[in-house]
C-alpha cells in the first residue's frame, strides 16, 4: 500500500503529518511531502487513520 495526496483537494491542514509523522512531513507552505515507497505494515493502521481524518479526503491509500 502507498500513500498519495490529491494535491488539488489538499488544503494544507497538516493533520496527516501529525497523525503519520513517520511518513509525512510538510513543506514550508504547509503542504504534505509524502514518502512514495510502499508503506511498512506497522504504519498501515495510522495511515488509514490519517486518511480518514483529512478534512478534504485528499489523502489516499492506494494498493500497489
Amino acid at each position, binding site marked *: 500500500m502507498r500513500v498519495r*495526496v*490529491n*494535491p*488539488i*483537494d*489538499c488544503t*494544507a491542514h497538516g493533520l496527516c503529518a501529525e497523525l503519520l509523522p513517520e511518513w509525512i512531513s510538510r*513543506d514550508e*507552505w*504547509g*503542504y504534505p*511531502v509524502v514518502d*512514495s515507497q510502499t508503506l511498512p505494515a506497522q504504519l498501515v493502521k495510522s495511515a488509514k487513520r490519517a486518511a480518514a481524518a483529512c478534512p478534504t479526503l485528499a489523502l489516499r491509500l492506494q494498493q500497489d
Partner: protein
Amino acid sequence: MRLLTAAGPLLTEHLGAHGELQLADRQQLLEAVEGAGLLGRGGAGFPTARKMRTVAAGSRPVVLANGCEGEPASGKDALLLSRHPHLVLDGLQAAAHAVGAAEAHLALHRGSPALPLVRKAIAERRDRATVTLHEVEPRYVASEESALINHVNTGVAKPVFTPPRPFERGIGRRPTLVNNVETLAHLALIARHGAAWFRAVGDPEEPGTQLFTADGAVVEVPTGTAVRSLLDLRGLQAVLVGGYFGTWVGVAQAQDLVLTHRDLRAAGGALGAGVLVGLPATGCGLVETARVATFLAAENAGQCGPCFNGLPSIAAAVRALALGPWDDRTMTDLDRWLGVLAGRGACRHPDGAVRFVLSALTVFAADVVEHRAGRPCKGVHSAPVLPVPLDGRSWT
C-alpha cells in the same frame, strides 16, 4: 519526406499524394502499429500501440487528437494541421478504427491559425467516426491530456488528479485514447504502408521520421538525427532541447548529441516535442531561463499548493540570480525548492519546470558565479531568444 510532402491541404491533393485510406482488419492494424514501434510525438514518447490496446479493451471508447501545441517554441503541429490536415484526420479515423471508437475529437488552441483549414478539411470528408472540433484556452497546461478531457467534459481546461487515467476513464467517463496530431499523421501512413515500411528509416528502437522545430523552422528528419545537422552550432553557447520541459545542453555536449528519447534521457534531458533553440554566445542563459521560469510559473493552474507556491518562488529566485539582487539565501532557497516539487502536482508541470531550471544551473554554472560576484556579462542586455507569450493572462 513522409508527412511534409509537396501536396496541398485539399482532400483531392491529399488523395493524389497518398491515395485512399483503406482500413483493414482492426487486429491487423493494431499489430501494424505495434510492429512499427510508433512512439507518441506529443512529448513523452509513449508507445502508441500499448495505449491503443488498453483503450480497445474498454467499452465504448473515444479518441482525442491533441493539436494544441502549447510549447511556445514549437511550430510543427500548426504546420502539419495547416498543410496536411487530412493526414491527421486519416490518422484519427485509423485510431478510432483500431480501438473501436465511433466518436473522435480534435482539440486546437482557440485562435489557432490552423482552425479555418481544419474546419474546412473536416467538412470535406465522409468519416465513419464523427469528428468534433474543440477550441481550448491557449494556456500551457490546458493541453495536458487530463485537462483536455476536463475541457471536453466540463469546459474547464485544467488538469485533474489521476488515476483514473484518460485511457481508463476520459471523455464521458469512457476510455479515451489521447494522441498528438503528429503521432496520428504517422499512424495514417502506417495504416497504408505497414510496419516494415515505417521502420525502414530512423533509429531502430524509435523508428520513423519526426518533426522538429529548430529556431522556429519545422523540418522532418529520421529519428536519431544529430543536433548539429539541424542547427548551426557555430557562435552558440548552448542549445535548448525539448522545449520548456526539456533541458539546456552546453554546445560542446550538443556537438555529439543525437535526437532520440534514449540519448536525451542518458544526457539527463528529454526529447519532448522536438524543439531546438540555439542560444548565441552573446546571450545570457540565466536571463533566458528567468524569462521562461516566470512564464511557467504564471501558467500554473492554481490548483496544487506545491506548484502554485513553488514555481513562483523558483522563478523569483532565478530572476534574482540573473539580474539581482542576490542575498545569501537565494541559492539555498532555490536548491531546496527545486528538490521538493517533483511529483507533487496533479500534472507534470512542476516536474518539467524544475528539470528546465536545474539544467540551467548546471550548464550556466560559471555564469552563476559571475553574476553572484556582480559581474554579469553584456548578454543580459541582448534581445530575448526564447519565445514567451507573457501577456498577463490569468485563469478565470
